[in-house]
């Protein structure tokens, strides 16, 4: 069923009786050409593009819980392509371009809103690094601007310009950055994939991979065996758990990232902002909540909840950046499991087991990557070759010394 303004009006006048399910709940068939494991944003996007762009059929997506229940359902909704390194920037720029056409593409309003993102800087060294980065972005075809202090002040006069421990000196801005209604991304992809024949199978947990002669033949699940020619795993924080079933150890750890939302407030922050002297980034949702976050808690965790030190660290950053939020109230916090990789960058690659493909290691930057991750993973699954923007996301980059370490922190996942 196609969504349209006309349709919305007609349904409104007839008691909304005509709306059907946004996606079909499928029961598993005996076998498929492709099985995507993981009903988060990346898995759903992969299934969608595999069907739509790569014209593949007989595709199933299995999800242990409910689709969209992972990190696509709890994040700070930011999209941007302000990366530094050659291995990353083309990919994230590709992703941003896909965001820009996504809603018309999948006929679902995900509220892609490019209200701009600024990364504040407070030292000359940060300015130099942002100059390097901004140039790299433009060289890769993205947009970037370097703002001075007065330009930042004109945009956000309520920031702490006059009484700061680390004064704001300027910002790197990407006007095409912004936010997206995160849940809608999952539902839009699910609906688009389902309409194109993808079987979306919820409450179906993968318990093992069946292998014959060095290649996979299917998955063992809580709902029985399902055969497949190719299997793509995109399970984010559960990557190590799922891939352990294929006897693989991964270059990543699972960590908890907390995020927060305030009570609904009349509009005050238009775009997205990151603080350069503390762990704090913020935007305001269309409902009025300030959506903000900071660092990961820093220890391995699958608990989907965090502890106070990070909550306080984030609030301290927020209060030092914009002391007007002292009387705004934090409404809700949540914690997601992040697949923190050893260099802070993802992996989209074949495994040593034929027919088994892996997508993960998104750290806490996975949301913005959703469209390109799905597209590139679908490309790899369908063609056997990496997409041109994702050639660096290989397992063997650590062995070869080709790390993509944006933050320069080395092999310590909790520092990325």
């Amino acid at each position: 069923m196609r969504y349209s303004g006309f349709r919305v009006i007609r349904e409104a006048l007839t008691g909304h009786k005509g709306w059907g399910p946004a996606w079909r709940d499928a029961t598993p068939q005996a076998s498929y050409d492709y099985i995507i494991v993981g009903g988060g944003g990346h898995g759903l996007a992969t299934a969608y593009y595999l069907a739509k762009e790569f014209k593949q059929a007989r595709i199933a997506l299995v999800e242990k819980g409910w689709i969209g229940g992972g990190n696509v359902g709890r994040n700070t909704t930011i999209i941007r392509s302000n990366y530094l390194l050659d291995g990353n920037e083309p990919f994230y720029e590709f992703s941003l371009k896909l965001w820009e056409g996504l809603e018309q593409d999948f006929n679902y309003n995900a509220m892609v809103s490019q209200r701009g993102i600024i990364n504040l800087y407070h030292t000359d060294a940060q300015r130099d690094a942002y100059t390097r980065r901004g140039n790299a972005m433009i060289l890769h075809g993205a947009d970037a601007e370097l703002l001075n202090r007065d330009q930042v002040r004109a945009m956000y006069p309520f920031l702490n310009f006059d009484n700061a421990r680390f004064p704001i000196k300027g910002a790197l801005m990407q006007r095409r950055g912004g936010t997206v209604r995160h849940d809608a991304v999952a539902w839009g992809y699910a609906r688009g994939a389902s309409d194109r024949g993808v079987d979306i199978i919820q409450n179906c947990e993968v318990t093992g991979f069946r292998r014959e002669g060095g290649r996979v033949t299917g998955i063992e699940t809580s709902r029985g065996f399902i055969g497949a020619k190719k299997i793509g795993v995109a399970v984010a924080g559960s990557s190590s758990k799922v891939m352990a079933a294929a006897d693989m150890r991964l270059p990543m750890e699972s960590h908890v990232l907390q995020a927060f939302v305030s009570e609904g407030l009349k509009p005050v922050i238009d775009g997205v902002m990151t603080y350069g002297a503390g762990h704090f980034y913020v935007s305001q949702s269309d409902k009025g909540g300030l959506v903000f976050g900071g660092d990961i808690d820093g220890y391995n965790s699958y608990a989907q909840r965090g502890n106070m030190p990070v909550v306080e660290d984030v609030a301290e950053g927020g209060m030092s950046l914009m002391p007007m939020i002292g009387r705004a109230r934090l409404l809700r916090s949540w914690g997601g499991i992040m697949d923190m990789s050893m260099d802070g960058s993802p992996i989209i690659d074949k495994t040593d087991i034929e027919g088994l493909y892996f997508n993960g290691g998104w750290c806490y930057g996975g949301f913005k990557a959703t469209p390109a991750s799905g597209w590139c993973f679908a490309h790899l699954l369908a063609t056997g070759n990496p997409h041109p923007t994702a050639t660096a996301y290989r397992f063997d980059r650590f062995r070869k010394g080709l790390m993509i370490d944006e933050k320069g922190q080395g092999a310590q996942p909790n520092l990325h």
Partner: protein
Amino acid sequence: MIINHPLLGPRDAQEFTYLGDATLIDRPDGLSFPSADAAMDAMHDYLYQRSNPAGEHRELWFHEQGDRSWLVVTRNTVTHEILKVELARDVARMRGRSK
């Protein structure tokens, strides 16, 4: 979280800095391999590959705002329950490390 320090008793985890999997204690000797490739293979596996279990995990914590001891904490990554805390130096010796 609270880590029950073997010498100091319960201390808030906020006083500690986390490093990661305690297998980092088992550092290969870079000069003990027949070839540079073999040394790199071993060092790569040591540094980059992680079990990352959902369950019991032995991990290194540094008591940065305390007595500067490195600890090996056995903790359940699903419940955060801490089952055992040891001085890393003792663990290193038990695992055959010396100088």
